[in-house]
């Protein structure tokens, strides 16, 4: 029979766990709102930028005059994967589903004879890849404020340009959790080199309608634009991933709170039954003692 005192401490500890998880849920919910707003407001810039980029590059069907950094090298040997994880845990399957898709992606690249290097963003990814055999180029941690998010995107951008120019990598992709809804996140890959045009058909139609004049000439503009675009893409995905992280934490903490509630209920039930049993036992002892006299 379970001990009454043990049950009591057990209930108390589950209760305090429940308090913590429900507080975390509330914090995540308010952070989610802020992260969503940030992601939303940064979208205007990145959309305009991709529009300009596609009207610069989309004009000619022939890709040969476009810079390598836009269209990619024809025979890629080394691929860089930027993985956008969270800094903290307690967010359900957020990071593990990310790593699962990363592993599948890396396997696929390897089967094509392409070597993969990793650039983790967030403590969880860098901890995960430190234990693996993948080569880490540089990791970025502590992405907790908006200023820091911008700074990291800037650094990542510089690193990408440097690596590509020195021929250390031929392709660059970024992996992040896309914020689908408050209860769903989806690991998503985006290719930066060569540049992926999300709705190229739509864009090229639009851009051919308006023929822009360019100043300075196309190539100079592209030289300015491409690094800008890396930075916005990376920044956008960091923001998206942070919104997804808070959403994941919110749902998982909601579940944890509910589970703690169920546990308290069943523990309280056992506690009461045990208490009753103890009382009954004592009564029987007293009665049978009295009868014996």
């Amino acid at each position: 029979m379970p001990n009454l005192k043990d049950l009591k401490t057990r209930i108390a500890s589950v209760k305090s766990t429940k308090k913590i998880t429900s507080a975390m849920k509330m914090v995540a919910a308010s952070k989610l709102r802020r992260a969503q707003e940030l992601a939303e407001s940064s979208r205007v810039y990145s959309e305009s930028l991709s529009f300009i980029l596609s009207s610069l590059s989309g004009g000619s069907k022939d890709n040969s005059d476009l810079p390598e950094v836009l269209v990619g090298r024809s025979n890629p040997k080394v691929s860089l994967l930027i993985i956008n994880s969270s800094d903290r845990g307690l967010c359900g399957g957020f990071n593990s589903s990310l790593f699962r898709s990363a592993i599948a992606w890396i396997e696929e690249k390897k089967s094509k004879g392409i070597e993969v290097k990793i650039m983790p963003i967030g403590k969880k990814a860098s901890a995960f890849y430190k234990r693996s055999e993948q080569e880490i180029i540089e990791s970025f941690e502590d992405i907790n404020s908006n200023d820091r998010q911008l700074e990291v995107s800037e650094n990542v951008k510089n690193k990408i340009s440097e690596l590509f120019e020195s021929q250390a990598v031929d392709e660059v992709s970024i992996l992040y959790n896309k914020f689908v809804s408050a209860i769903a996140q989806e690991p998503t890959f985006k290719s930066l080199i060569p540049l992926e045009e999300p709705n190229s058909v739509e864009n090229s139609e639009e851009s051919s309608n308006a023929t822009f004049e360019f100043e300075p000439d196309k190539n100079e503009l592209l030289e300015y634009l491409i690094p800008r675009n890396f930075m916005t893409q990376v920044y956008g995905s960091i923001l998206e991933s942070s919104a997804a992280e808070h959403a994941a934490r919110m749902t998982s903490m909601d579940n944890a709170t509910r589970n703690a509630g169920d546990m308290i209920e069943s523990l309280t039930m056992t506690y009461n039954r045990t208490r009753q049993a103890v009382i009954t036992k004592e009564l029987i002892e007293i009665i049978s003692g009295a009868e014996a006299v």
Partner: protein
Amino acid sequence: MINLKVVSPQKVIFEKEVEMAVLPGAEGDFAAMVNHSPFISSLRPGQMAIMSNNKVEESFFVSGGLVMLKEKVCEVLVDQIEPLSEINNSNFQQSKTYQELEGNELALNTFEQVVNTPSYK
């Protein structure tokens, strides 16, 4: 009137109807007005001025960026922007923009120049 939309990587800074906006294009200042031919240009550090009736209504320092000009819309993608209404010679070095541009000599010198002797006032 042309719809002027100023956007930074973080957010839309403002969006409004203006008569004319003068922008520091990479190869010289230009004025954005309604029915301008479609035009894309990069920006050099300099002064951006919103004008009406040949008078400057509002004035800004921009550290660089891009402009996309369409018939009725002028979209300015800026790196850093600072309204000049409350900035003067004595306090411009304390502004956030100034600190963020640290190390970028060209932009900082232009900032000082725009504060002291704006081309449009």
